C-alpha cells in the first residue's frame, strides 16, 4: 500500500510537470507577440524592450520555462498585469471560496443521490424508481449555469432569504466565528449564500451518482450473501444498509473523484453567475482583460487541486476495500 502510494505520488509529480509545460506554453502558443499582449495599445519601444527583458522573452524557450517553473515552485506565479499584485496572492485569497463551493456541491450531491439511489433500487420498477430515473436524466442534461440562472430568476429574486450573489463571510469562516462568539448569524449567512450555487453545481453530479448508486445497489442486492443474510432472518432494512449499501458505495466513491473534475470546471462558469469570489471567476475575468499570468496561475492551481483529489480518492479506495491489492 505504502509503496503504491509512493508510486502514485511520483506519477502525479510527472503529470504535474507535464501540466506545467502546457500551462507555460499557453502564453507562447497564443497568436501574436506576448509582449504586445502584455503592453496593450499605448507603449513606446523602450517599454517594449524593458518588458521583453523583465519577462525574459529574449531568452530561449527552455531557459524561460525553467526559470518560470523555479519561481512557480517557490510560490511565485508572477505579477498580475492589470492589478499589479502577485498572482499567487490573488489565487490564495480565492482558493478557499472555490474549494468551499466544490465541497458544498459534493455534499448536496451525495446527500440527495445516495438516499434516492438506494430507494430507487429497493423499490425497483415502482413509480418512485421511474421518477428518480427521469429526474436524474433531466438533471444530467442541464447546463449547471443555466440552472443557476433559473434558480436566481424564479427563486432567489422572490425570496429575501436567498441572496443573489456573493459568498457572505463563507461557511467555514462563519462556522469559526460562530464557535468563537456563540453567535449563529455568521454561519447562517455562509450557508444562505452557498445554497443556490451548491445546488446548481451539485445537481448534475447528484444525477450521475443516483444512477450509479441504483445500479450498484441492484447488483449487490442480487448477490448470494444478501440472500443468505435474508435467509437467516435478518431484517430487510438491516440487510440493505449494513450488507448491501456499504459494498454498493465502492464504485460511487470512485466516481465522486472523477466528477470532482467536472465540478471544478463547471464551477468556473457557476462562480461567474453568482459572482462567487473564487478562482474560476478570477480566471474568467482575467481572460477578458487578457491578464495572462492570472489565467496561467489559476489553471495550474485548479489542475493541481484536481490531481490531488484524484490521488486521495484512489488511495482511499484501498482503505474502503481491504480486498484490493496493489502491485
Amino acid at each position: 500500500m505504502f509503496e503504491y502510494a509512493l508510486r502514485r505520488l511520483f506519477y502525479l509529480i510527472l503529470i504535474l510537470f507535464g501540466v506545467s509545460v502546457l500551462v507555460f506554453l499557453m502564453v507562447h502558443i497564443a497568436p501574436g507577440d506576448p509582449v504586445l499582449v502584455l503592453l496593450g495599445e499605448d507603449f513606446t519601444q523602450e517599454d517594449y524592450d524593458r518588458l521583453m527583458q523583465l519577462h525574459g522573452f529574449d531568452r530561449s524557450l527552455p531557459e524561460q520555462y525553467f526559470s518560470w517553473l523555479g519561481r512557480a515552485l517557490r510560490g511565485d506565479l508572477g505579477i498580475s498585469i492589470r492589478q499589479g499584485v502577485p498572482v499567487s496572492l490573488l489565487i490564495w485569497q480565492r482558493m478557499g471560496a472555490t474549494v468551499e463551493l466544490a465541497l458544498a456541491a459534493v455534499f448536496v450531491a451525495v446527500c440527495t443521490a445516495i438516499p434516492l439511489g438506494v430507494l430507487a433500487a429497493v423499490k425497483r420498477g415502482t413509480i418512485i424508481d421511474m421518477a428518480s430515473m427521469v429526474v436524474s436524466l433531466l438533471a444530467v442534461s442541464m447546463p449547471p449555469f443555466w440552472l443557476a440562472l433559473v434558480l436566481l430568476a424564479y427563486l432567489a429574486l422572490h425570496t429575501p432569504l436567498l441572496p443573489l450573489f456573493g459568498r457572505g463571510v463563507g461557511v467555514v469562516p462563519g462556522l469559526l466565528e460562530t464557535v468563537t462568539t456563540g453567535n449563529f448569524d455568521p454561519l447562517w449567512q455562509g450557508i444562505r449564500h452557498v445554497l443556490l450555487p451548491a445546488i446548481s453545481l451539485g445537481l448534475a453530479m447528484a444525477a450521475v451518482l443516483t444512477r450509479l448508486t441504483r445500479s450498484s445497489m441492484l447488483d449487490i442486492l442480487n448477490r448470494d450473501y444478501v440472500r443468505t443474510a435474508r435467509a437467516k432472518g435478518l431484517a430487510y432494512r438491516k440487510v440493505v444498509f449494513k450488507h448491501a449499501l456499504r459494498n454498493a458505495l465502492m464504485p460511487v466513491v470512485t466516481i465522486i473523484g472523477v466528477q470532482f473534475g467536472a465540478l471544478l470546471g463547471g464551477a468556473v462558469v457557476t462562480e461567474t453567475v453568482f459572482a462567487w469570489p473564487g478562482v474560476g471567476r478570477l480566471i474568467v475575468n482575467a481572460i477578458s482583460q487578457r491578464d495572462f499570468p492570472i489565467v496561467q496561475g489559476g489553471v495550474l492551481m485548479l489542475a493541481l487541486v484536481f490531481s490531488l483529489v484524484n490521488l486521495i480518492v484512489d488511495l482511499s479506495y484501498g482503505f474502503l476495500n481491504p480486498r484490493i491489492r496493489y502491485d
Partner: protein
Amino acid sequence: MVKKILKNRSALLGILIIGALVLSAVFAPYLTPTDPFAQNLFTRYVEPQGLGEDHVLGTDDLGRDILARIIMGTRLSLTVGLIATGISLIIGVILGSVAGYMGGWADNLIMRFMDLILAFPGVLLAIAIVATLGPGMVNTMIAIAIVRIPAMARVTRSQVLALKEEEFVEAAHAIGCGHMRILFRHILINGFAPIVVLATLGMGTAIVTEASLSFLGLGAQPPAISWGRMLSVGRQALRNAPHVTLYPGLAIVVTVLGFNLLGDGMRDILDPRLKNN
C-alpha cells in the same frame, strides 16, 4: 438493429428528439416565424405571447424574436457538437488503437499524454484553450475536441486490448492479413459499439461545453446565434424578463436529453448485460 432501436423506448425517444432538431436546423430559415436577426427597439423584452401570436416565446434586449433565434441556434449547437465530437472520435480512435495494438513505448507515450489532458478539469481546459487561441467557433470546436479525445482513446484502447488476443485475430494473422487490415477490418469493427455509445453521450457534453464557452463570451461571436450567448444576454434582465434566459436553456436541455437518451438506449441494445441494471 433497426428493430431493436425501435423497441427500445429510450433510444426511440432520443432519435425522435434529435431527428426533430436536425430537421429544424436544416430548414431553419423556413421555420422561423420572423427574421431571427431583425431588431426592433419598440418591442424589447416582450413577454411570451403564446401560440398564434407574433412573438410566441417573447423577444430579447434588442426586440429580436426568441423562438426564431432558438430555431436558428440549433444549427450552431449541432454543428459544433457534431464536428467537435467527430474530430475527437477520429483522433481518439486512431490514438487508442495504436496504443492498444502496438503496446510498449507507443502505448506508454500516448496514454501518458492522455493522462496529462485528463489532469485538467474538462471545461477549464476548454476555456484555457479558447483563451489561448482566441474566441470563435472554430477554436471552440478545437477546444472541445481536445478535451474529449482522452475518453475516446481510453475506450478504444481497452477494446483493442481485449479483442487482439481473440482467435479470429490470430486467424487473420495466420492467413497473412496486414496490421492495418487486422486493426480496422477485424478489431475495430467488432469493438466499435462502446465507442459509438461514448460518442453519442459525448455530443451532449460537447453541446453543454459550447454553451458554457459562448455564455462566457468565448464561443462563436455575434452575429452568429448561439444558445449560450442568448443566455448571457438574458442574464442582464433576469429580474424583468426571465423568459429570455428560460427558453434558450430549455432548448439546450432538450437537445442534450435527446443525445443522452439515445446513448443510454444504444448502450442497452449493444450491451444487453447492462440492461435494467
